[in-house]
């Protein structure tokens, strides 16, 4: 890279990685208390924030400091005492940096949970030990697996209120495990905690000697996420073509790079690749990373590829391997979550679809069923999907999209739907099949 942008070797010795996790649950489950404790114990709550929250709590005559006020940032949320939207919170330990997508747990906020889960490496579902598995616990587990969040933690909270009783814990574990067997759960961990008293949150609890697993924070710090990405199937959606047009610099004059964020696989200079939609093959000559040339690129790196042959490539195209290509499809089957109160999704609805870097028009051909997110019952008589409802649809798209099944790759299997009249994002889809 040019000398003006030469980066230094990091003076910082730490090589933290990043874990994004979503939390689901209501205030009643102790979710805010748990997040408050994680933030507090990692020194990520500041004194002025705490003072402000304490003052507001006192002003409202609340008995305890309401840590939900830390995350409920909007006036309407504080006035109504509810969480309306996904709140993002940040904390770090010496091992990892964490981004929490804190989502409200009620059914009317399903779209918020879907949004928070879409980028999460891990989800925490809170269960009140006194109440056991509720309808909402099942819903949260289902949404977590629908969005293919790779790791699921069931935190069985308020163990202090059931005398730290192992039998209570075991009963909930058994019940949840039985239910989870119907879902595609890849990694399931149970942790008995008391968010209020800190048992098994940061440190192992002395009150539950029968529990031999790790504390929640220890689990968050150590859960192995490197293998969650697809490092097999090379997928490079072309985002932007870089052409410097610098007539003064002969070296740059012929520079033509294809910029994008790797969505799957590992790319290396010398690799033979195929361009879609043309089907022409060529070879990667250089990969330019943010800090200069790199000898390999993988998700989620943003890089620029230079190719051996002059092919007409533009935004929305895809680069893959000649013998491992995504499906070029105009007919898609997908699970969708409908996200707008303004209109109902029905067959014949026309929408805009955005998938990787390609945008096209789409027609809803069929609604196969609406899913009851609490019971998983499929209603194949349903005529439409309303706000927060989930169902399976078929779409016809005006031009081919280069797709994989969502359970193979979240980035090439996910899409959003946009209403052409309002320009709002009205749906999110997970591809289950393509032709």
């Amino acid at each position, binding site marked *: 890279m040019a000398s003006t942008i030469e980066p230094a070797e990091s003076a910082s010795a730490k090589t933290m990685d990043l874990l994004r996790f979503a939390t689901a649950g209501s205030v009643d489950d102790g979710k805010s208390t748990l997040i408050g404790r994680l933030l507090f114990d990692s020194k990520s709550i500041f004194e002025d924030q705490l003072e402000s929250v304490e003052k507001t709590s006192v002003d409202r005559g609340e008995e305890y400091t309401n840590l939900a006020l830390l995350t409920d940032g*909007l006036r309407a949320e504080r006035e109504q005492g509810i969480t309306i939207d996904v709140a993002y919170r940040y904390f770090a330990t010496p091992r990892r940096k964490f981004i929490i997508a804190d989502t409200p747990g009620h059914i009317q906020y399903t779209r918020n949970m879907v949004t928070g889960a879409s980028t999460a490496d891990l989800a925490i579902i809170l269960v009140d030990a006194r109440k056991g598995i509720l309808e909402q616990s099942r819903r949260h587990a289902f949404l977590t697996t629908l969005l293919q969040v790779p790791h699921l933690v069931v935190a069985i909270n308020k163990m202090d209120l059931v005398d730290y009783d192992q039998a209570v814990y075991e009963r909930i574990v058994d019940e949840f495990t039985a239910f989870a067997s119907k879902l595609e759960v890849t990694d399931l961990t149970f942790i008995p905690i008391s968010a209020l008293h800190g048992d098994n949150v940061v440190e192992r609890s002395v009150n539950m000697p029968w529990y031999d697993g790790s504390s929640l924070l220890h689990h968050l710090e150590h859960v192995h996420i490197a293998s969650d990405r697809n490092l097999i199937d090379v997928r490079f959606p072309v985002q932007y073509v870089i052409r410097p047009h610098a007539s003064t610099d002969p070296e740059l004059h012929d520079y033509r790079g294809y910029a994008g964020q790797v969505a799957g696989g590992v790319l290396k200079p010398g690799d033979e690749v195929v361009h879609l939609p043309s089907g022409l093959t060529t070879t990667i000559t250089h990969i330019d990373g943010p800090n200069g040339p790199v000898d390999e690129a993988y998700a*989620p790196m943003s890089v620029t590829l230079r190719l051996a042959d002059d092919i007409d490539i533009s935004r929305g195209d895809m680069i893959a391997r000649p013998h491992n290509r995504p499906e070029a499809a105009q007919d898609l089957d997908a699970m969708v979550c409908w996200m707008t109160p303004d209109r109902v999704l029905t067959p014949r609805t026309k929408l805009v679809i955005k998938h990787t870097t390609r945008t096209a028009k789409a027609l809803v051909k069929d609604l196969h069923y609406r899913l009851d997110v609490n019971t998983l019952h499929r209603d194949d008589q349903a005529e439409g999907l309303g706000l927060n409802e989930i169902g399976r649809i078929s779409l016809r798209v005006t031009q081919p999209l280069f797709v994989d099944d969502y359970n193979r790759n979240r980035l090439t299997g996910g899409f959003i739907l946009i209403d052409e009249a309002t320009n709002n994002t009205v749906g999110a889809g997970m591809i289950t099949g393509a032709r």
Partner: protein
Amino acid sequence: MQRCDYLLSQLDVLEAESIHIFREVAAEFERPVLLFSGGKDSIVMLRLAQKAFWPAPIPFPVMHVDTGHNFPEVMEYRDRRVAELGVRLVVASVQDAIDSGRVVEQKGRRASRNRLQITPLLDAIEEHGFDAAFGGARRDEEKARAKERVVSFRDEFGQWDPKNQRPELWNLFNTRITQGEHVRVFPLSNWTELDIWDYVRREELELPPIYFAHTRRVFERDGLLLDAETGFANRGDDEPEFEASVRYRTVGDASCTGAVKSNAATLEEVIAEIAATRITERGQTRADDRTSEAAMEDRKKEGYF
């Protein structure tokens, strides 16, 4: 970058995400602009923009909303950095807006031009036809900003409607708008204050000197140490000035940005202090957020950064 196990550090992941956002917006909008104040966040943003399009130049201009109440060191830095990069600088002037009667200067000792920035900012966006404005706001800064989208829609009046925001899933951003509307784009949404400082260190980015400890004449008001040298903070006779070793943790309008007592003269020392502090940067240094619990939300709804 670590290569053995395909792991990336948190700074590499954040950098990749920000670059993705820059490219997406440059590809999908006609006339983006980058809001540049000369503060640390916009300095990091400018570096990320440079990387996103390298070896091509940054394909959009930068805009400074000039309150006229600037620290001279920051203005000197701004002009030098812009010249180095060869980008076009657009200045939206609060003074011009006052002179032409579009906004009215606040009165009294606590008069600040902070809120007055909204009008020239929106006017400049309209005048130049900008349809996307990159801002350096971070979600960890402030609770209203924690609810902000990466690509955040603004209606034809430049207003933000926090209760009616577009969901953002995966790395897909809805960039559709109609004539007269625009978006604000926040590539640093997921960065924390410490990430910014770590990145400044990693990239060896130059910052304006006021970020490091220096001797300055200051005075105290409402628990903030305000500058007594530029004269913008309207120091009263009952507010004695004194000399102190200070640094700035944020850089804003000199009339409402407080300094922090500090002897940290090097980047390492500053980072050590920030890692240990128990007070947020806006809580410690910004008078503009203290007017009410929803001060930022209210300003943002009107079109503020």
